[in-house]
């Protein structure tokens, strides 16, 4: 045999590795574009006062049961993370004496976690049965429990750790924020943005929100400025507050291909638990690029199959020759 099994595996592994290592961008598929009608949210950590009105409103709007977790006394709803019962959660960054809000050292800051409605969502890419979909117009990432097979790939694939499974329910489902699409269908604003007293959660069209975020970054810290509430350009009156000292970046503009939920903060984003140093394209653009390259027109599998068939055929022929002698010997043995 000219090519033994060991050499064959080595060669094919080297080929695969070379294809991967050569240039990820060469195999990466075209990054997905933000829909012009995409809706999103701007969460401004400096405006958040931690009242948790959004958590309460979310549970009401989505009919989620209360949850008691951690070391807290079981008096009220105290989720520690998003879960099968909690679609959004206010978290607290604390450092040292935690004396002053929006300060990195010896300060504290609030953080709101929920689905980011990625422009190029990993969960939609990972779902084998299209139970996770991204609305082509609004860009809302929705889950369809009637299609779901419960594999939980979406849970593992999400770089933000958002979709959660109802492990406490034998007939559990995946739960995640769907941006109150049922309220939006009635022309309303998602519950968390509607109730937010300071406009820390602000609803709007994504490009409007990006402009608003840029406007905030250009503010002179300390100046009295107006912050809109509820929906950007909506009916609620804004409120005046001194401009904070922002980190000069909008999280979600390009991270992992962009998200429809944008974040502003006065402490670095990694303190708030957001993944930083991530590529500017979504993981699906890379993983789908590789996989679709491998399976394009089924060319590589077909070649592989042909090669294997040839090797097997040859081996069978050779083995057939061998087995003849072996059976002869066996018969000899039996005879002797």
């Amino acid at each position, binding site marked *: 045999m000219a090519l033994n099994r060991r050499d064959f595996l080595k060669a094919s592994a080297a080929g695969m590795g070379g294809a991967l290592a050569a240039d990820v961008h060469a195999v990466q598929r075209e990054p997905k574009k933000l829909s012009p009608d995409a809706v999103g949210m701007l969460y401004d950590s400096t405006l958040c*006062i931690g009242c948790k*009105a959004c958590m309460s409103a979310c549970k009401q709007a989505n009919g989620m049961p209360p949850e008691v977790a951690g070391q807290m006394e079981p008096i009220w709803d105290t989720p520690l993370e998003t879960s099968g019962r909690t679609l959004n959660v206010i*978290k607290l960054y604390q450092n040292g004496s935690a*004396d002053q*809000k929006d300060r990195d050292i010896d300060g504290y800051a609030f*953080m709101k976690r929920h689905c980011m409605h990625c422009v190029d969502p990993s969960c939609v890419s990972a779902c084998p049965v299209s139970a996770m979909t991204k609305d082509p117009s609004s860009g809302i990432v929705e889950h369809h429990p009637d299609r779901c097979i419960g594999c939980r790939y979406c849970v593992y694939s999400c770089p933000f750790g958002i979709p959660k499974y109802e492990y406490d329910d034998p007939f559990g489902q995946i739960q995640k924020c769907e941006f109150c699409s049922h309220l939006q269908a009635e022309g309303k604003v998602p519950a968390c943005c509607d109730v937010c007293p300071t406009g820390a959660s602000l609803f709007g069209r994504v490009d409007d929100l990006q402009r608003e975020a840029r406007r905030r970054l250009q503010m002179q810290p300390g100046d009295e400025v107006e912050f809109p509430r509820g929906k950007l350009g909506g009916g609620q009156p804004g409120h005046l507050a001194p401009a904070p000292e922002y980190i000069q970046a909008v999280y979600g503009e390009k991270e992992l291909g962009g998200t429809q939920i944008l974040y502003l903060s006065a402490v670095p984003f990694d303190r708030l638990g957001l993944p930083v140093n991530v590529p500017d394209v979504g993981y699906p653009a890379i993983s789908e690029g590789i996989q679709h390259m491998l399976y394009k027109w089924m060319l590589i599998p077909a070649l592989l199959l042909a090669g294997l068939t040839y090797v097997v055929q040859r081996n069978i022929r050779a083995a057939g020759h061998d087995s003849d002698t072996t059976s002869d010997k066996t018969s000899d043995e039996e005879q002797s």
Partner: protein
Amino acid sequence: MATIKPQADTHLDEFVGSLGGVSRRSFLKFCAGVAATIGLPAGMAWRIAEAASSPHRLPVIWLSAQECTGCTESLLRSTHPTLEQLILDAISLDYHETLSAGAGHQAEAYKQHSLQENKGKYVLVVDGSIPLKDGGIYCKVANRPIVDHVREAAEGAAAIIAIGSCASWGGIPSSSPNPTGATRVSEVLKDRAVVNIPGCPPNPYNFLTTVLQFLAFNSLPELDSKNRPKFAYDRLIHENCERRPHFDAGRFAVTFGDEGHRQGWCLYKLGCKGPETYANCPSILFGDVGSGAWPVGCGHPCFGCSEEGIGFTKSIHQLAQLRNVTPPAAYPNISEPVGQGITPGSAALVAGITGVVLGAGAVATSRLGSSSDNASADSNDEHD
């Protein structure tokens, strides 16, 4: 702190005559209330009662600068017991522009007399802000700028109390554009300790308690970093607010008279300054005028009258900035640990399973090796 033995009842009767018609019962109730406000044990009420009815009454000089007399009015309207009688009998109010019996030169002369007579013993109370612009000519009493009066009276004062937000921070007169150059009392008396009792007006009990502590124990209450008595100003209004549960549950009144407002929901969205204002209003209410009677209780957002840089500075409907996170609010950390780590039981279980697998694997491997050796030996034999 020494415990005070309750005196015999006969001793108590002495109080009655010196109380100007206040019944012994209501007087003792008041003293017990004062003791409770400064956090003293109930027995201390006796000592306060003794001090408040002593024939050697504490001389008090009360100077009024740029003020509206609201602090005095609120003090006069305290109700249990009727405090105008008590305060006039418990202390010797030697000078007060509104309450002095005398007037004009007579009152000024008596003030001078008292300043000399009681040097180092009297308490100086100032309400109103002090104008400093143009030599202080914008507030003059007896043809002298009030700043001179304050400095003169401060020299021999045993203690100085700035009552009201004007005296404590500058208050309304110091608001932009501040045409008179109004400033706080402590700015004028930089070398003296000034106790600030801010509020517009402050609850009279915060003032009376401070005065009576000085009267009874010759000491001032513990003060915070802004020289406010801690017993009254160490907690945010937000912390003890009766509407706090609505805040925690995200139920906000959005406009005056809406459903939430009628239901008594949180007033934060209407501009309540409770989350950035330190005062004991939720506990002892406002101005001693009856139950539920304080702005938030009546459905109006707190406007931070007692807080420097809030009342008279921020507009009424501007949202409060969060000072700090106060109990009972609790939040999960950014990354919450999952699970409880390794327990002895789980470690033992994992170790046991690992041992079994390793052992079984070793045995299986050794048998596998020997059987294949046998097989190959057999086949070798065959070839031979």
